[in-house]
Protein backbone atom coordinates (compact mmCIF):
# COMPACT_ATOMS: atom_id res chain seq x y z
CA UNK A 1 0.00 0.00 0.00
CA UNK A 2 1.51 3.29 -1.04
CA UNK A 3 0.31 6.47 0.49
CA UNK A 4 1.63 9.92 -0.09
CA UNK A 5 3.85 11.14 2.64
CA UNK A 6 2.07 13.82 4.59
CA UNK A 7 4.63 16.50 4.24
CA UNK A 8 2.98 19.62 5.49
CA UNK A 9 0.23 18.95 7.90
CA UNK A 10 -1.65 21.65 9.71
CA UNK A 11 -3.00 21.23 13.16
CA UNK A 12 -5.75 23.45 14.35
CA UNK A 13 -6.16 24.33 17.89
CA UNK A 14 -9.79 25.02 18.48
CA UNK A 15 -9.98 22.05 20.83
CA UNK A 16 -12.93 21.40 23.06
CA UNK A 17 -11.40 19.36 25.82
CA UNK A 18 -14.14 17.44 27.56
CA UNK A 19 -14.12 15.38 30.69
CA UNK A 20 -10.79 13.69 31.14
CA UNK A 21 -11.05 10.16 32.39
CA UNK A 22 -9.51 9.38 35.74
CA UNK A 23 -8.10 6.07 34.59
CA UNK A 24 -5.12 6.37 32.28
CA UNK A 25 -3.86 3.38 30.38
CA UNK A 26 -0.25 2.48 31.00
CA UNK A 27 1.79 0.53 28.46
CA UNK A 28 4.34 -2.21 28.93
CA UNK A 29 6.25 -3.64 25.96
CA UNK A 30 7.73 -7.10 25.69
CA UNK A 31 9.69 -8.39 22.73
CA UNK A 32 11.05 -6.43 19.81
CA UNK A 33 11.40 -6.67 16.06
CA UNK A 34 14.29 -8.65 14.61
CA UNK A 35 16.00 -5.66 13.03
CA UNK A 36 15.36 -2.47 14.91
CA UNK A 37 16.34 0.68 13.05
CA UNK A 38 18.79 2.78 15.07
CA UNK A 39 17.58 6.38 15.13
CA UNK A 40 18.45 9.51 17.07
CA UNK A 41 15.67 11.84 18.12
CA UNK A 42 17.63 14.92 19.11
CA UNK A 43 16.53 17.27 21.85
CA UNK A 44 14.61 19.90 19.86
CA UNK A 45 15.43 23.60 20.12
CA UNK A 46 13.12 26.40 21.20
CA UNK A 47 11.02 26.48 24.36
CA UNK A 48 12.55 23.72 26.48
CA UNK A 49 9.33 22.53 28.15
CA UNK A 50 7.37 22.24 24.92
CA UNK A 51 10.32 20.69 23.12
CA UNK A 52 10.66 18.06 25.83
CA UNK A 53 6.93 17.32 25.73
CA UNK A 54 7.10 16.65 22.00
CA UNK A 55 10.34 14.68 21.85
CA UNK A 56 9.17 12.49 24.75
CA UNK A 57 6.11 11.54 22.72
CA UNK A 58 8.13 10.91 19.55
CA UNK A 59 10.70 8.76 21.35
CA UNK A 60 8.04 6.85 23.27
CA UNK A 61 6.04 6.12 20.13
CA UNK A 62 9.03 4.87 18.17
CA UNK A 63 10.42 2.81 21.02
CA UNK A 64 7.12 1.13 21.91
CA UNK A 65 6.61 0.11 18.29
CA UNK A 66 9.48 -2.35 18.78
CA UNK A 67 10.86 -1.41 15.37
CA UNK A 68 13.33 1.28 16.42
CA UNK A 69 16.32 1.51 18.69
CA UNK A 70 16.85 4.96 20.13
CA UNK A 71 20.44 6.15 19.88
CA UNK A 72 21.62 8.97 22.09
CA UNK A 73 22.56 12.09 20.21
CA UNK A 74 26.07 13.36 19.65
CA UNK A 75 25.20 17.06 19.58
CA UNK A 76 22.66 18.86 21.73
CA UNK A 77 20.18 20.31 21.01
CA UNK A 78 19.57 20.11 17.28
CA UNK A 79 17.07 22.19 15.36
CA UNK A 80 15.76 21.79 11.84
CA UNK A 81 18.30 24.42 10.80
CA UNK A 82 21.32 22.74 12.42
CA UNK A 83 23.90 21.17 10.21
CA UNK A 84 24.14 17.55 11.18
CA UNK A 85 27.46 15.96 12.08
CA UNK A 86 26.77 12.84 10.06
CA UNK A 87 30.09 11.20 10.91
CA UNK A 88 29.44 11.56 14.64
CA UNK A 89 25.90 10.22 14.29
CA UNK A 90 27.14 7.26 12.25
CA UNK A 91 29.84 6.51 14.77
CA UNK A 92 27.14 6.16 17.41
CA UNK A 93 25.29 3.79 15.12
CA UNK A 94 22.36 6.00 14.13
CA UNK A 95 20.98 5.44 10.63
CA UNK A 96 18.77 8.49 10.91
CA UNK A 97 18.63 11.69 12.94
CA UNK A 98 15.55 13.78 13.61
CA UNK A 99 16.07 17.38 14.68
CA UNK A 100 13.67 20.24 15.15
CA UNK A 101 12.42 23.12 17.21
CA UNK A 102 9.33 24.54 18.81
CA UNK A 103 8.52 28.09 17.90
CA UNK A 104 5.60 30.40 18.53
CA UNK A 105 3.14 31.57 15.93
CA UNK A 106 1.84 35.15 15.82
CA UNK A 107 -1.39 34.07 17.53
CA UNK A 108 0.39 32.37 20.43
CA UNK A 109 0.30 28.77 19.34
CA UNK A 110 3.21 26.40 19.01
CA UNK A 111 4.87 25.46 15.78
CA UNK A 112 6.81 22.22 15.78
CA UNK A 113 9.20 21.93 12.85
CA UNK A 114 11.49 19.06 12.21
CA UNK A 115 13.67 17.34 9.66
CA UNK A 116 14.69 13.75 9.35
CA UNK A 117 18.16 13.01 7.96
CA UNK A 118 19.68 9.83 6.56
CA UNK A 119 23.17 9.64 8.11
CA UNK A 120 24.53 7.26 5.47
CA UNK A 121 23.32 9.19 2.43
CA UNK A 122 23.85 12.45 4.32
CA UNK A 123 20.56 13.66 2.93
CA UNK A 124 17.25 14.90 4.23
CA UNK A 125 14.51 12.26 4.22
CA UNK A 126 11.62 14.40 5.37
CA UNK A 127 10.61 17.76 6.74
CA UNK A 128 7.36 18.86 8.27
CA UNK A 129 5.80 21.49 10.46
CA UNK A 130 2.80 21.20 12.74
CA UNK A 131 0.97 24.02 14.45
CA UNK A 132 -0.75 23.23 17.69
CA UNK A 133 -1.92 24.55 21.03
CA UNK A 134 -0.33 23.52 24.32
CA UNK A 135 -2.90 20.81 25.19
CA UNK A 136 -2.24 19.18 21.84
CA UNK A 137 1.55 19.11 21.82
CA UNK A 138 1.24 15.35 22.21
CA UNK A 139 -0.76 15.16 18.98
CA UNK A 140 2.00 17.02 17.15
CA UNK A 141 4.49 14.53 18.59
CA UNK A 142 2.42 11.61 17.26
CA UNK A 143 2.34 13.25 13.82
CA UNK A 144 6.12 13.63 13.82
CA UNK A 145 6.51 9.99 14.89
CA UNK A 146 4.17 8.96 12.05
CA UNK A 147 6.33 10.85 9.53
CA UNK A 148 9.51 9.20 10.83
CA UNK A 149 7.88 5.77 10.90
CA UNK A 150 6.59 6.07 7.36
CA UNK A 151 9.92 7.30 5.96
CA UNK A 152 11.97 4.59 7.66
CA UNK A 153 9.57 1.62 7.61
CA UNK A 154 7.85 2.33 4.31
CA UNK A 155 4.26 2.17 5.51
CA UNK A 156 2.11 4.69 7.37
CA UNK A 157 2.45 4.97 11.13
CA UNK A 158 -0.53 4.66 13.44
CA UNK A 159 0.66 6.82 16.34
CA UNK A 160 -1.98 9.45 15.55
CA UNK A 161 -4.85 6.99 15.56
CA UNK A 162 -7.23 6.37 18.45
CA UNK A 163 -8.55 3.32 20.21
CA UNK A 164 -11.91 2.67 21.85
CA UNK A 165 -12.40 0.29 24.74
CA UNK A 166 -14.65 -0.30 27.74
CA UNK A 167 -13.53 0.11 31.34
CA UNK A 168 -15.44 -1.65 34.09
CA UNK A 169 -14.59 0.20 37.29
CA UNK A 170 -17.14 -1.47 39.59
CA UNK A 171 -20.24 -3.66 39.45
CA UNK A 172 -22.36 -0.90 37.98
CA UNK A 173 -19.78 1.41 36.44
CA UNK A 174 -19.04 1.09 32.77
CA UNK A 175 -17.25 3.64 30.60
CA UNK A 176 -16.75 3.61 26.87
CA UNK A 177 -13.46 5.44 26.49
CA UNK A 178 -11.53 6.86 23.57
CA UNK A 179 -7.76 7.27 23.91
CA UNK A 180 -4.74 7.98 21.73
CA UNK A 181 -3.09 4.82 20.42
CA UNK A 182 -0.51 5.13 23.21
CA UNK A 183 -3.27 5.00 25.84
CA UNK A 184 -2.95 8.66 26.79
CA UNK A 185 -5.56 11.40 26.60
CA UNK A 186 -8.40 9.03 27.53
CA UNK A 187 -11.88 10.53 27.39
CA UNK A 188 -15.20 8.95 28.23
CA UNK A 189 -17.72 8.88 25.40
CA UNK A 190 -20.37 7.06 27.43
CA UNK A 191 -20.83 6.40 31.14
CA UNK A 192 -23.41 3.78 32.04
CA UNK A 193 -24.58 1.64 34.93
CA UNK A 194 -25.10 -1.21 32.50
CA UNK A 195 -22.60 -3.07 30.30
CA UNK A 196 -21.38 -1.75 26.94
CA UNK A 197 -19.87 -4.16 24.42
CA UNK A 198 -18.75 -4.48 20.80
CA UNK A 199 -17.68 -0.92 19.93
CA UNK A 200 -17.06 -0.57 16.19
CA UNK A 201 -15.55 2.52 14.50
CA UNK A 202 -17.23 4.07 11.51
CA UNK A 203 -14.81 4.08 8.56
CA UNK A 204 -14.34 7.87 8.89
CA UNK A 205 -13.55 7.62 12.61
CA UNK A 206 -16.27 10.06 13.71
CA UNK A 207 -18.80 7.57 15.11
CA UNK A 208 -18.92 4.39 17.10
CA UNK A 209 -21.57 1.70 16.88
CA UNK A 210 -21.91 -0.41 20.01
CA UNK A 211 -24.24 -2.54 22.09
CA UNK A 212 -25.57 -1.03 25.31
CA UNK A 213 -27.62 -2.85 27.94
CA UNK A 214 -29.05 0.32 29.52
CA UNK A 215 -32.59 -0.84 28.63
CA UNK A 216 -32.17 -4.29 30.23
CA UNK A 217 -31.55 -5.83 26.82
CA UNK A 218 -28.96 -5.45 24.08
CA UNK A 219 -29.66 -2.49 21.79
CA UNK A 220 -27.38 -1.20 19.01
CA UNK A 221 -26.56 2.52 19.09
CA UNK A 222 -24.59 4.79 16.79
CA UNK A 223 -22.77 7.51 18.73
CA UNK A 224 -21.18 10.63 17.20
CA UNK A 225 -18.07 11.28 19.27
CA UNK A 226 -17.72 15.03 18.80
CA UNK A 227 -21.33 15.87 19.65
CA UNK A 228 -22.31 12.98 21.91
CA UNK A 229 -25.43 12.51 19.80
CA UNK A 230 -26.70 8.93 19.93
CA UNK A 231 -29.18 7.27 17.64
CA UNK A 232 -30.73 3.82 17.96
CA UNK A 233 -29.66 1.72 14.99
CA UNK A 234 -31.40 -1.51 16.04
CA UNK A 235 -33.92 -2.01 18.84
CA UNK A 236 -36.19 -4.77 17.64
CA UNK A 237 -38.03 -7.25 19.82
CA UNK A 238 -35.43 -9.63 21.26
CA UNK A 239 -31.66 -9.03 21.20
CA UNK A 240 -29.79 -6.61 18.95
CA UNK A 241 -26.02 -6.98 18.84
CA UNK A 242 -22.64 -7.33 17.06
CA UNK A 243 -22.68 -4.19 14.86
CA UNK A 244 -20.13 -3.95 12.02
CA UNK A 245 -19.87 -1.05 9.57
CA UNK A 246 -19.99 -1.49 5.84
CA UNK A 247 -16.84 0.01 4.24
CA UNK A 248 -18.87 2.94 2.84
CA UNK A 249 -20.13 3.81 6.34
CA UNK A 250 -23.78 3.67 5.30
CA UNK A 251 -24.95 0.38 6.73
CA UNK A 252 -24.35 -1.89 9.68
CA UNK A 253 -24.34 -5.65 9.70
CA UNK A 254 -26.09 -6.65 12.94
CA UNK A 255 -27.40 -9.73 14.72
CA UNK A 256 -31.12 -9.69 15.48
CA UNK A 257 -33.36 -12.29 17.11
CA UNK A 258 -36.64 -10.66 16.08
CA UNK A 259 -37.56 -13.50 13.70
CA UNK A 260 -36.24 -16.29 15.94
CA UNK A 261 -32.64 -17.33 16.61
CA UNK A 262 -29.56 -15.10 16.36
CA UNK A 263 -29.43 -14.20 12.67
CA UNK A 264 -27.54 -11.79 10.40
CA UNK A 265 -29.19 -8.66 9.03
CA UNK A 266 -28.06 -5.33 7.64
CA UNK A 267 -29.62 -2.02 8.65
CA UNK A 268 -28.99 1.60 7.70
CA UNK A 269 -26.74 3.42 10.17
CA UNK A 270 -29.82 5.52 11.02
CA UNK A 271 -31.85 2.39 11.76
CA UNK A 272 -33.74 2.33 8.44
CA UNK A 273 -34.21 -0.46 5.91
CA UNK A 274 -33.53 -3.70 7.77
CA UNK A 275 -32.69 -6.62 5.47
CA UNK A 276 -31.88 -10.24 6.17
CA UNK A 277 -28.39 -11.28 5.09
CA UNK A 278 -28.25 -15.02 5.74
CA UNK A 279 -30.36 -17.78 7.27
CA UNK A 280 -29.58 -20.76 9.42
CA UNK A 281 -31.31 -22.93 11.96
CA UNK A 282 -28.58 -22.20 14.50
CA UNK A 283 -26.50 -19.26 15.66
CA UNK A 284 -25.04 -16.76 13.20
CA UNK A 285 -23.19 -13.86 14.83
CA UNK A 286 -20.10 -11.56 14.85
CA UNK A 287 -20.41 -10.31 11.26
CA UNK A 288 -17.50 -8.36 9.77
CA UNK A 289 -17.23 -6.90 6.26
CA UNK A 290 -14.13 -7.59 4.18
CA UNK A 291 -12.39 -4.26 3.42
CA UNK A 292 -13.58 -4.40 -0.22
CA UNK A 293 -17.15 -4.90 0.97
CA UNK A 294 -17.54 -8.10 -1.06
CA UNK A 295 -17.89 -10.57 1.79
CA UNK A 296 -19.20 -10.76 5.29
CA UNK A 297 -17.26 -13.04 7.61
CA UNK A 298 -19.15 -14.37 10.63
CA UNK A 299 -19.29 -16.99 13.37
CA UNK A 300 -21.84 -19.80 13.07
CA UNK A 301 -22.59 -23.10 14.78
CA UNK A 302 -24.40 -24.42 11.68
CA UNK A 303 -21.80 -27.19 11.40
CA UNK A 304 -22.15 -28.24 15.05
CA UNK A 305 -19.37 -26.17 16.68
CA UNK A 306 -18.71 -22.43 16.40
CA UNK A 307 -16.63 -21.84 13.25
CA UNK A 308 -15.98 -18.93 10.91
CA UNK A 309 -17.81 -18.70 7.60
CA UNK A 310 -18.12 -16.07 4.92
CA UNK A 311 -21.00 -15.10 2.69
CA UNK A 312 -21.19 -12.70 -0.25
CA UNK A 313 -22.56 -9.37 0.96
CA UNK A 314 -25.29 -9.77 -1.67
CA UNK A 315 -26.29 -13.12 -0.10
CA UNK A 316 -25.90 -16.69 -1.29
CA UNK A 317 -24.46 -19.84 0.21
CA UNK A 318 -21.90 -19.33 2.99
CA UNK A 319 -18.50 -21.05 2.77
CA UNK A 320 -16.70 -22.36 5.82
CA UNK A 321 -13.35 -20.66 6.50
CA UNK A 322 -11.94 -22.32 9.66
CA UNK A 323 -11.54 -26.08 10.10
CA UNK A 324 -8.91 -26.68 12.79
CA UNK A 325 -10.28 -27.04 16.31
CA UNK A 326 -13.75 -26.94 17.85
CA UNK A 327 -14.10 -23.22 18.69
CA UNK A 328 -13.09 -20.49 16.23
CA UNK A 329 -14.85 -17.15 16.65
CA UNK A 330 -14.70 -13.35 16.15
CA UNK A 331 -13.29 -12.95 12.60
CA UNK A 332 -11.56 -9.61 11.90
CA UNK A 333 -10.07 -8.88 8.49
CA UNK A 334 -6.72 -7.14 8.00
CA UNK A 335 -6.90 -3.75 6.23
CA UNK A 336 -5.43 -5.29 3.04
CA UNK A 337 -8.01 -8.11 3.19
CA UNK A 338 -5.34 -10.79 2.97
CA UNK A 339 -5.43 -12.18 6.49
CA UNK A 340 -7.95 -12.74 9.23
CA UNK A 341 -7.44 -12.45 12.97
CA UNK A 342 -9.74 -14.58 15.13
CA UNK A 343 -9.96 -16.27 18.51
CA UNK A 344 -9.30 -20.00 18.60
CA UNK A 345 -9.64 -22.36 21.53
CA UNK A 346 -6.39 -24.32 21.81
CA UNK A 347 -5.49 -26.58 24.74
CA UNK A 348 -8.42 -25.13 26.69
CA UNK A 349 -7.28 -21.51 26.25
CA UNK A 350 -8.82 -18.84 24.04
CA UNK A 351 -5.96 -17.51 21.90
CA UNK A 352 -5.37 -14.95 19.19
CA UNK A 353 -4.74 -16.60 15.83
CA UNK A 354 -4.16 -15.27 12.32
CA UNK A 355 -5.04 -17.00 9.06
CA UNK A 356 -3.48 -16.20 5.72
CA UNK A 357 -6.65 -16.32 3.62
CA UNK A 358 -4.91 -17.41 0.41
CA UNK A 359 -2.96 -20.34 1.89
CA UNK A 360 -5.37 -20.98 4.83
CA UNK A 361 -2.27 -21.24 7.02
CA UNK A 362 -3.04 -20.51 10.70
CA UNK A 363 -0.58 -19.08 13.21
CA UNK A 364 -1.48 -18.87 16.91
CA UNK A 365 0.13 -15.69 18.26
CA UNK A 366 -0.36 -15.95 22.03
CA UNK A 367 -0.33 -18.56 24.76
CA UNK A 368 -2.92 -16.84 26.93
CA UNK A 369 -6.20 -18.22 28.27
CA UNK A 370 -8.74 -15.49 27.69
CA UNK A 371 -8.03 -13.52 24.52
CA UNK A 372 -11.02 -11.69 23.05
CA UNK A 373 -12.09 -9.05 20.55
CA UNK A 374 -9.18 -8.68 18.10
CA UNK A 375 -8.86 -5.60 15.87
CA UNK A 376 -6.13 -4.62 13.41
CA UNK A 377 -4.22 -1.36 13.49
CA UNK A 378 -5.07 0.54 10.29
CA UNK A 379 -1.60 -0.25 8.86
CA UNK A 380 -2.13 -3.95 9.53
CA UNK A 381 1.04 -4.26 11.60
CA UNK A 382 -0.43 -4.88 15.08
CA UNK A 383 -3.55 -6.56 16.43
CA UNK A 384 -5.22 -5.19 19.56
CA UNK A 385 -6.94 -7.72 21.81
CA UNK A 386 -8.45 -7.95 25.26
CA UNK A 387 -6.93 -10.55 27.52
CA UNK A 388 -6.71 -11.35 31.21
CA UNK A 389 -3.68 -11.19 33.46
CA UNK A 390 -3.96 -12.06 37.14
CA UNK A 391 -7.75 -12.09 36.91
CA UNK A 392 -7.86 -8.53 35.54
CA UNK A 393 -8.84 -7.45 32.08
CA UNK A 394 -6.05 -5.73 30.11
CA UNK A 395 -5.48 -4.83 26.49
CA UNK A 396 -2.61 -6.22 24.50
CA UNK A 397 -1.27 -5.16 21.12
CA UNK A 398 0.48 -8.03 19.34
CA UNK A 399 2.49 -7.69 16.13
CA UNK A 400 1.20 -9.87 13.29
CA UNK A 401 4.38 -11.98 13.53
CA UNK A 402 3.80 -12.41 17.28
CA UNK A 403 7.21 -10.96 18.22
CA UNK A 404 6.21 -7.65 19.78
CA UNK A 405 3.64 -7.42 22.55
CA UNK A 406 2.47 -4.23 24.26
CA UNK A 407 0.25 -4.48 27.29
CA UNK A 408 -2.14 -1.65 28.18
CA UNK A 409 -3.80 -1.67 31.58
CA UNK A 410 -5.54 0.71 33.97
CA UNK A 411 -4.73 0.80 37.66
CA UNK A 412 -8.30 0.45 38.85
CA UNK A 413 -10.62 -1.72 36.83
CA UNK A 414 -11.01 -4.10 33.97
CA UNK A 415 -10.31 -3.01 30.42
CA UNK A 416 -12.05 -4.90 27.66
CA UNK A 417 -13.68 -4.69 24.23
CA UNK A 418 -10.94 -2.78 22.38
CA UNK A 419 -11.36 -1.46 18.85
CA UNK A 420 -8.53 0.23 16.94
CA UNK A 421 -9.79 3.26 15.04
CA UNK A 422 -9.03 4.23 11.44
CA UNK A 423 -6.43 6.72 10.22
CA UNK A 424 -7.30 10.27 11.24
CA UNK A 425 -8.15 12.28 8.16
Amino acid at each position, binding site marked *: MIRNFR*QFAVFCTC*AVVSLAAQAQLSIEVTGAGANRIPVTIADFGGDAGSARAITTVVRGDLERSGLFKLVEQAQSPLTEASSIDFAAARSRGADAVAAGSIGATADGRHEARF*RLHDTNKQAQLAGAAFVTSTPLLRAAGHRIADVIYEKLIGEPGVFSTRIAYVVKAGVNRFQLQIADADGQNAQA*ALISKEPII*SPSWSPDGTRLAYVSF*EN*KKPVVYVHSLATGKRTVAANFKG*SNSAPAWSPDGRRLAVVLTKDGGSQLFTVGADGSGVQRLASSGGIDTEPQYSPDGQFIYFTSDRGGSPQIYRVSSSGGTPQRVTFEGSYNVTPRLSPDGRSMAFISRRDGGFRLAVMDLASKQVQVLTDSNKDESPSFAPNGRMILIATEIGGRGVLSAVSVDGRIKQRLSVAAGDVREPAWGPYQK
Partner: protein
Amino acid sequence: MNKLIIPALLALLIAGCSSTPDTGAEQSGAPVEGRDGVRTVTTGGVGSSQLPAVLTDPKSILSKRSVYFDYDSFEIKSEFKDLVSAHARFLAENRQFKMLIQGNTDERGSREYNIALGQKRADAVKKALMLMGVREEQVESVSLGEEKPSCVDQGESCWAKNRRGDMLYNGEF
Protein backbone atom coordinates in the same frame (compact mmCIF):
# COMPACT_ATOMS: atom_id res chain seq x y z
CA MET B 1 14.75 22.92 -2.00
CA ASN B 2 14.41 21.10 1.26
CA LYS B 3 13.31 24.21 3.04
CA LEU B 4 10.32 24.20 5.30
CA ILE B 5 7.54 26.16 3.74
CA ILE B 6 6.68 28.15 6.83
CA PRO B 7 5.09 31.17 5.09
CA ALA B 8 2.76 28.89 3.15
CA LEU B 9 1.84 27.13 6.34
CA LEU B 10 1.02 30.33 8.14
CA ALA B 11 -1.09 31.49 5.24
CA LEU B 12 -3.05 28.30 5.52
CA LEU B 13 -3.59 28.74 9.19
CA ILE B 14 -5.02 32.13 8.59
CA ALA B 15 -7.20 30.75 5.83
CA GLY B 16 -8.84 28.16 7.98
CA CYS B 17 -8.61 25.18 10.18
CA SER B 18 -9.16 22.10 8.12
CA SER B 19 -7.51 22.92 4.83
CA THR B 20 -4.59 21.03 3.40
CA PRO B 21 -1.57 22.62 1.79
CA ASP B 22 -1.53 22.35 -1.95
CA THR B 23 1.54 20.17 -2.13
CA GLY B 24 -0.08 17.13 -3.67
CA ALA B 25 0.23 15.49 -0.30
CA GLU B 26 -2.62 13.51 1.09
CA GLN B 27 -5.04 15.32 3.31
CA SER B 28 -4.06 15.43 6.93
CA GLY B 29 -4.28 17.70 9.92
CA ALA B 30 -7.97 17.50 10.59
CA PRO B 31 -9.52 20.13 12.82
CA VAL B 32 -8.82 19.19 16.35
CA GLU B 33 -12.45 19.41 17.45
CA GLY B 34 -13.25 16.54 15.16
CA ARG B 35 -10.22 14.61 16.21
CA ASP B 36 -10.07 14.96 19.93
CA GLY B 37 -13.41 16.28 21.06
CA VAL B 38 -15.34 13.57 22.81
CA ARG B 39 -18.48 14.67 24.57
CA THR B 40 -19.41 12.48 27.50
CA VAL B 41 -22.90 11.03 27.73
CA THR B 42 -24.23 9.53 30.93
CA THR B 43 -27.01 6.99 30.93
CA GLY B 44 -28.86 5.37 33.80
CA GLY B 45 -30.63 2.10 34.31
CA VAL B 46 -34.36 1.56 34.64
CA GLY B 47 -36.06 1.56 38.02
CA SER B 48 -38.61 -0.98 39.23
CA SER B 49 -42.18 -0.30 40.35
CA GLN B 50 -44.91 -1.89 42.44
CA LEU B 51 -45.88 -5.46 41.65
CA PRO B 52 -48.71 -7.55 43.19
CA ALA B 53 -47.67 -9.44 46.31
CA VAL B 54 -48.13 -12.81 44.63
CA LEU B 55 -45.12 -12.02 42.44
CA THR B 56 -42.89 -10.78 45.26
CA ASP B 57 -43.96 -12.66 48.42
CA PRO B 58 -41.10 -15.05 49.24
CA LYS B 59 -43.70 -17.72 50.12
CA SER B 60 -45.15 -17.57 46.60
CA ILE B 61 -43.49 -19.73 43.94
CA LEU B 62 -43.90 -16.76 41.59
CA SER B 63 -41.32 -14.82 43.59
CA LYS B 64 -38.77 -17.24 42.18
CA ARG B 65 -37.66 -16.06 38.78
CA SER B 66 -34.55 -18.01 37.77
CA VAL B 67 -34.18 -21.17 35.69
CA TYR B 68 -30.69 -22.73 35.72
CA PHE B 69 -29.14 -24.63 32.84
CA ASP B 70 -26.43 -27.26 32.41
CA TYR B 71 -23.19 -26.48 30.58
CA ASP B 72 -23.74 -26.10 26.83
CA SER B 73 -27.43 -26.93 27.36
CA PHE B 74 -30.60 -25.04 26.54
CA GLU B 75 -33.13 -27.49 27.93
CA ILE B 76 -35.31 -26.66 30.93
CA LYS B 77 -34.45 -29.24 33.59
CA SER B 78 -37.34 -31.11 35.23
CA GLU B 79 -36.72 -29.38 38.56
CA PHE B 80 -37.75 -26.05 37.00
CA LYS B 81 -40.87 -27.24 35.15
CA ASP B 82 -43.22 -26.37 38.07
CA LEU B 83 -41.77 -22.88 38.30
CA VAL B 84 -42.18 -22.21 34.60
CA SER B 85 -45.74 -23.64 34.70
CA ALA B 86 -46.68 -21.36 37.60
CA HIS B 87 -45.50 -18.29 35.68
CA ALA B 88 -47.28 -19.51 32.55
CA ARG B 89 -50.57 -19.80 34.52
CA PHE B 90 -50.12 -16.33 35.99
CA LEU B 91 -49.46 -14.76 32.59
CA ALA B 92 -52.36 -16.64 30.97
CA GLU B 93 -54.73 -15.42 33.69
CA ASN B 94 -53.35 -11.89 33.74
CA ARG B 95 -53.07 -10.84 30.12
CA GLN B 96 -52.18 -7.27 31.09
CA PHE B 97 -48.83 -8.54 32.43
CA LYS B 98 -45.75 -8.72 30.29
CA MET B 99 -42.53 -10.58 30.89
CA LEU B 100 -38.93 -10.02 29.82
CA ILE B 101 -36.85 -13.20 29.86
CA GLN B 102 -33.11 -12.55 30.12
CA GLY B 103 -30.79 -15.41 29.15
CA ASN B 104 -27.32 -15.56 30.70
CA THR B 105 -24.13 -17.58 30.21
CA ASP B 106 -20.93 -18.19 32.07
CA GLU B 107 -17.88 -16.11 31.20
CA ARG B 108 -16.06 -18.53 28.93
CA GLY B 109 -15.74 -17.66 25.24
CA SER B 110 -16.61 -14.75 22.98
CA ARG B 111 -18.94 -12.11 24.41
CA GLU B 112 -21.05 -11.90 21.27
CA TYR B 113 -21.22 -15.67 20.88
CA ASN B 114 -22.35 -15.83 24.49
CA ILE B 115 -25.11 -13.33 23.70
CA ALA B 116 -26.33 -15.86 21.14
CA LEU B 117 -26.05 -18.76 23.62
CA GLY B 118 -27.95 -16.80 26.30
CA GLN B 119 -30.62 -16.07 23.72
CA LYS B 120 -31.14 -19.80 23.22
CA ARG B 121 -31.80 -20.16 26.97
CA ALA B 122 -34.25 -17.25 27.01
CA ASP B 123 -35.95 -18.65 23.92
CA ALA B 124 -36.34 -22.06 25.63
CA VAL B 125 -38.19 -20.44 28.54
CA LYS B 126 -40.34 -18.37 26.18
CA LYS B 127 -41.25 -21.44 24.13
CA ALA B 128 -42.26 -23.37 27.28
CA LEU B 129 -44.45 -20.46 28.45
CA MET B 130 -46.16 -20.18 25.08
CA LEU B 131 -46.85 -23.93 24.96
CA MET B 132 -48.76 -23.38 28.20
CA GLY B 133 -50.98 -20.64 26.82
CA VAL B 134 -48.97 -17.43 27.18
CA ARG B 135 -49.40 -15.10 24.22
CA GLU B 136 -46.39 -14.08 22.14
CA GLU B 137 -47.06 -10.37 22.73
CA GLN B 138 -46.77 -10.95 26.50
CA VAL B 139 -43.20 -12.22 26.43
CA GLU B 140 -39.90 -10.98 25.04
CA SER B 141 -36.79 -13.15 25.18
CA VAL B 142 -33.44 -11.35 25.20
CA SER B 143 -29.87 -12.16 26.16
CA LEU B 144 -27.38 -10.56 28.49
CA GLY B 145 -24.71 -13.11 27.52
CA GLU B 146 -21.89 -13.12 30.06
CA GLU B 147 -22.33 -9.42 30.88
CA LYS B 148 -24.42 -9.66 34.06
CA PRO B 149 -23.00 -12.53 36.12
CA SER B 150 -24.67 -13.16 39.47
CA CYS B 151 -21.46 -14.82 40.65
CA VAL B 152 -18.02 -13.52 39.70
CA ASP B 153 -15.66 -16.18 41.05
CA GLN B 154 -13.86 -18.68 38.85
CA GLY B 155 -14.95 -22.30 38.66
CA GLU B 156 -17.92 -24.52 37.94
CA SER B 157 -19.97 -23.82 41.08
CA CYS B 158 -20.00 -20.15 40.19
CA TRP B 159 -20.39 -20.62 36.45
CA ALA B 160 -23.47 -22.81 37.08
CA LYS B 161 -25.20 -19.85 38.78
CA ASN B 162 -24.58 -17.75 35.71
CA ARG B 163 -26.08 -20.21 33.19
CA ARG B 164 -29.51 -18.86 33.85
CA GLY B 165 -32.75 -17.50 32.52
CA ASP B 166 -34.36 -14.70 34.58
CA MET B 167 -38.05 -13.82 34.32
CA LEU B 168 -38.87 -10.14 34.87
CA TYR B 169 -42.35 -8.59 34.99
CA ASN B 170 -43.40 -5.12 33.80
CA GLY B 171 -41.88 -2.56 36.09
CA GLU B 172 -38.85 -4.72 36.70
CA PHE B 173 -37.36 -3.95 33.30
